[in-house]
């Protein structure tokens, strides 16, 4: 399955430079690092906005619906990459049809729709798997990631899509931040909330599809939510927070790929575990620094992240 072959060659020497050199001598690992880097940067940037907008549920749904897209593509004999994107973008459009609450937070009725879209999409995935007739290993590959087989042309596709998405995001970022942080004032100033929210859903869909090629449909969410949540625990400043999020994402993906190469355990496990450890550490730091600040000047307001404040 997605067990790496590095461990079969030789164990790690624990000489870091030597180990990295040995790993990068293999072409598939170079491609894995390229794809992982692109996925980490994109996931961290778009995830930061997702966490700020409290659209984790939508993000998770768009991530898992790339699975039926890919399954359908394999059944039809088209490239799985196209399937990933088609699945996520189609789901983003369906969710965009549902009326939103101004702050973008899913209420009961809307989240019932999102949940149904997710379950139905996954059910469709099982239908395609059944129609294709037994590619069980591919199922676990699609769901939990198999970055071993990232080809050169796939890396090129990933880079092109990432550049496009980030370019769109550069245009969207300011009004989106305004609309997210203070929806009422933004609406009064003529910021097109609805259009922004649909555009962001599409961006989120493309990102989810892109990241799922490296982590698998089920674990995309780790790269979307964890670096961003970590950054927002540590700072409320947008630019600094975005940079922090990207750094966290890169550290998590690179170290996970490196460790997975010398281990028999799947890469998705390392990505989500490292991400979670970083997130827990950041939460501990925030709580501790809040305590310290309160102790230092009694009566002062403790520092809170925008998520907690909201």
């Amino acid at each position, binding site marked *: 399955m997605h067990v790496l072959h590095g461990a079969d060659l030789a164990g790690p020497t624990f000489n870091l430079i030597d180990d990295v050199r040995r790993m990068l001598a293999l072409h598939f690992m170079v491609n894995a690092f390229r794809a992982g880097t692109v996925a980490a940067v994109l996931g961290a940037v778009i995830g930061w906005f997702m966490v700020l907008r409290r659209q984790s549920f939508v993000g998770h749904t768009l991530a898992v619906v790339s699975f039926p897209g890919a399954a359908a593509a394999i059944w039809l004999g088209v490239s799985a990459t196209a399937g990933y994107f088609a699945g996520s973008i189609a789901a983003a459009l369906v969710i965009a049809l549902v009326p939103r609450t101004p702050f973008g937070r899913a209420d009961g009725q809307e*989240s019932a729709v999102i949940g149904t879209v997710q379950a139905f999409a996954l059910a469709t995935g099982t239908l395609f798997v059944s129609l294709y007739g037994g590619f069980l290993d591919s199922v676990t590959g699609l769901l939990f990631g198999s970055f071993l087989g990232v080809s050169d042309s796939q890396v090129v596709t990933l880079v092109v899509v990432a550049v496009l998405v980030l370019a769109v995001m550069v245009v969207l970022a300011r009004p989106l931040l305004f609309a997210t942080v203070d929806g009422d004032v933004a609406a009064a100033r003529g910021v097109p909330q609805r259009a922004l929210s649909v555009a962001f859903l599409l961006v989120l869909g493309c990102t989810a599809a892109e990241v799922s090629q490296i982590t698998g449909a089920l674990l995309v969410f780790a790269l979307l939510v964890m670096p961003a949540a970590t950054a927002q625990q540590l700072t409320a400043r947008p630019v600094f927070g975005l940079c922090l999020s990207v750094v966290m994402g890169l550290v998590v993906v690179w170290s996970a790929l490196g460790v997975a190469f010398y281990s028999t355990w799947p890469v998705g496990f390392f990505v989500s575990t490292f991400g*979670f450890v970083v997130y827990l550490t950041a939460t501990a730091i925030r709580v501790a620094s809040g305590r310290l600040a309160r102790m230092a000047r009694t009566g002062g307001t403790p520092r809170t992240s925008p*998520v907690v404040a909201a």
Partner: protein
Amino acid sequence: MTGAFFISAHPFLVTAFGAGTAIALAAGLVGYLLVLRGQVFAGDALSHVAFTGALAALAFGVDLRLGLYAGCVAFALLLAVLGGRTSADDTVIGSVFAWVLGLGALFLSLFTTSSSGVGGPGGTSGVNILFGSILGLSPRQALIDVVVSLVVATAIVAIARPLVFASLDPTVARSRGVPVRALSTGFFVLLGVTAGVATQAVGALLLLGLLAAPAGAAHRLTARPFLAIWLAAGIAVVSMWSGLTVAYLVPAVPSSFGIIGVATAVFMGTFVWTGLRRRRGRVATTAGVRIVPNGVPGAV
């Protein structure tokens, strides 16, 4: 009428219909309250925890159900604790369940390598847990599922009235002496048990559909809670029956797809239905009412 004939002709269909009916009943009742309380994301998280719990049990050689129920109930209690302090922060829930799912990937890999290699029984049971195999339930398993589901359904009916009150207006409910906190914890535990039992019917990944789709449809059709909760249960049971029938008649269709497909179609149908009613200018007070996060019903 012909339905009864083909069901009784195959023992495995009798088992599937029996267990399926009870599971759908419990899922419909719990799902209605889940949507009312705006906690669908918690259901989503539980559906992934169910997968990890079951695979952990398989990897360590314990009975699958033990891991399933233990994992779901433990995570449900964790959600109850987290949701107690702040109002269920979806970033925290998301981070935790993304990690739990990563653990699931590890257990899948451990179990697959420990049982006869790639594509062996390990891979099959992994996929079965994800997508369900109600047609493969043994009569004894089905009996346990029926008992568990009926216990959940009875418990929900018993606490429905105070729970709806506490969900719609927690502040007033608390001042009237309703134990809001205890009800919330109890509901999470029932949700966890439902996730465990529904995983065996439609699979870990699809149980969210059985919880959300019938409930979403019921919410669109009526604003009266005690009508809607039974409507949700009814839609879930009908979806189960028709989904199983479709899966039996068309062999290429997996049973889980049939069940979720019908439930989704009913939910989509309610959008058309309320749309038509509104166009004809007969917007009754019951139609098109939605629940906003703090529980105040408002017009769409």
